[in-house]
């Protein structure tokens, strides 16, 4: 009987799941099964000769098929609560029933709410009313329920995961840097930026897949340094080879942020309630499509008031536990990571370059 593991990565169409599939494939030791919610999400991982399966983790039949023969599971799936919470519970239940040897569940440090200071795993999980963090808390509870039944599940709580394909912490900032004026002044970006390069998270996942840890144990996963947000912005800007960032005044930046806020709220409301109708209008009219794209760009490139609070928060997430128990060793400071990210941004046309 072969000792080779079969690892199912759920959410393989996403930023983190896609990278974990790539890394597992490159290392070559495991049989890798990439779980895609929709086939349309397979463009990135389809570049590799890995097994692709369609799996909606809310669907029992999909789960049975996807878990057939699987020894290890990495859960990167995220979505609305029916996916993040109910889907995770169904996935873990099915993994337990099929005899999975280890499940690694990707959570987030958002489960701590908005803490200050040094934050380790002893901090209580805090409901904030924000859907993402709150649903991740519920998903962790599902992990604990299944751990109590004997499923070896490890919870990882990554910080701000950046790098190639990051649509949250990489692409929008690069786009803002290209579109001046720069609206995040140095004076209001002195908070701690808990940056975690995606390859460091991948190495934590690999460690967690192999470590014989207590079922339900949770670990913060952070990068090797604690820069300020301003340091991140300036170093990403430098890596992209752009002219130095010239600060707007703090008051000017806030005025602009406040001015765009009504548009942001209206757009959110319309998308939440009338997305199909909006898409249809966009398909029919070039003028409407261009107007929507311009509005989207304006919203995306203008910091929201909530962002200013984030850029000033002093909180540092400790990885001592992950280092001690999992042997996690983050190896990608900004000096290593950002040139790679910049190369990716150029290659994919986010920044004009030879491959635009």
């Amino acid at each position: 009987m072969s000792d080779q593991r079969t690892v199912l990565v759920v959410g393989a169409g996403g930023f983190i799941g896609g990278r974990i599939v790539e890394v597992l494939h490159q290392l070559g030791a495991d049989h890798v099964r990439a779980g895609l919610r929709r086939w349309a999400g397979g463009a990135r991982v389809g570049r590799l000769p890995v097994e692709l399966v369609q799996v909606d983790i809310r669907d029992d039949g999909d789960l049975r098929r996807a878990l057939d023969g699987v020894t290890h599971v990495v859960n990167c799936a995220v979505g609305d609560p029916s996916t993040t919470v109910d889907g995770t519970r169904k996935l873990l239940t099915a993994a337990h029933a099929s005899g999975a040897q280890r499940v690694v569940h990707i959570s987030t440090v958002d489960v701590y709410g908005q803490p200050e200071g040094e934050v380790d795993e002893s901090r209580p999980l805090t409901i904030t009313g924000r859907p993402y963090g709150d649903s991740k808390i519920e998903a962790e509870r599902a992990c604990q329920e299944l751990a109590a039944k004997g499923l070896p599940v490890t919870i990882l709580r990554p910080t701000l995961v950046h790098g190639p394909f990051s649509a949250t912490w990489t692409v929008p900032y690069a786009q803002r840097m290209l579109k001046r004026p720069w609206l995040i002044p140095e004076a209001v970006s002195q908070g701690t930026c808990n940056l975690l390069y995606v390859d460091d998270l991948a190495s934590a996942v690999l460690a967690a897949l192999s470590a014989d840890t207590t079922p339900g144990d949770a670990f913060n996963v952070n990068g090797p340094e604690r820069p300020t947000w301003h340091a991140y912005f300036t170093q990403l800007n430098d890596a992209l080879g752009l002219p130095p960032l010239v600060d707007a005044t703090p008051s000017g930046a806030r005025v602009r942020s406040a001015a765009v806020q009504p548009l942001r709220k209206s757009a959110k409301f319309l998308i939440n309630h009338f997305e199909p109708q909006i898409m249809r209008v966009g398909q029919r009219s070039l003028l409407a499509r261009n107007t929507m794209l311009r509005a989207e760009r304006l919203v995306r490139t203008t910091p929201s008031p909530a962002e200013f609070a984030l850029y000033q928060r002093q909180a540092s997430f400790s990885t001592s536990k992950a280092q001690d128990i999992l042997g996690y060793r983050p190896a990608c400071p900004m000096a290593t990571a950002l040139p790679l990210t910049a190369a990716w941004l150029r290659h994919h046309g986010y920044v004009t370059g030879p491959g635009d």
Partner: protein
Amino acid sequence: MPDLPIALIGCGAIAEMFYLPALEKRPDLLSSLILVDRNAEKAEAVRKRLGAAASASDHREVLSRVKGAIIATPHHLHTPLTLEFLEHGVHVLCEKPLSRTAAEVDQVVAAAAANRVHVLVNQTRRLYTSFQEVKRRIANGSIGELREIDYVLGEPFGWPAETNTYFGVAAGGRGVLFDNGAHIVDLVCWFLGGEPEIVSYEDDSRGGTEAVAEIKLRLGDANARIRLSWLSKLRNTYRITGTRGSMDGRVYESSSFTFRDPSGKSRRIKTDGAREGSYFAGKLLANFVGVVEGREQPIVAAGDVRPAISVIDACYQRRSTMIEPWYDVAGTPASV
């Protein structure tokens, strides 16, 4: 009013997005239309929705019952199904890409001739009046001698594929070049006026289907570069440069482009035509009906796409891997 027995083979995403909306506007065709899909329930549901004549789960059931077949299946079935229908004396409207190799195209052309039927290929870009005008201006020397074509097309893959036939091993290792390239390489070959030689080709496949591809081509004194991506939105523009001027535009703009004359003065050229996909499907369908009735020739026949199919196949034979420093630094992930 035609009473033409036509079958739509495949009721998946391309049928839903392109052919069915056009067929719905043709009640004269619906009365004898047969919907075919391996999923019998889906075929019947579509039949009911459209009020079409019949449904079936196997194309062999309709081979001798129809005069025309629209092939809207996954790519790898295009050639074999086309050949099967041609051999039964049925005209075919086939989705792109018609084939994987030039030899397969030759087979299709020969089968059509032997059975005295025609093949129409859906090369939608050739129906854009903007591109038709660009082609006309290249041919009449409006920009002097053609020197360079640059065409960039990239969007995150969003096609609502219902089967796993686009990616990885299941797609035979042919990705964005085979899919989007079937349109764009064809367009560039059409502009160039023949089959170019391949200067270079690289893509990002690591044993599966490529999601980013770049081709450099040459025909005579004219060079072309095509960049395609399924992973990110690119600038999505084209530029065609000649010795005395240039033309450029947005790749989705089907009825206008910018023309620059030798003095560098530019002006917007507007051409007739709608922008909607259903308009082109309707136009294609009208041509196909004309072909089946013996009144028209195919707008784009099988032989017309041979240069592009040949170039695409040759690219795959000589593919080299794009360097991706973020993916593999000295062959390993950065921190693992």
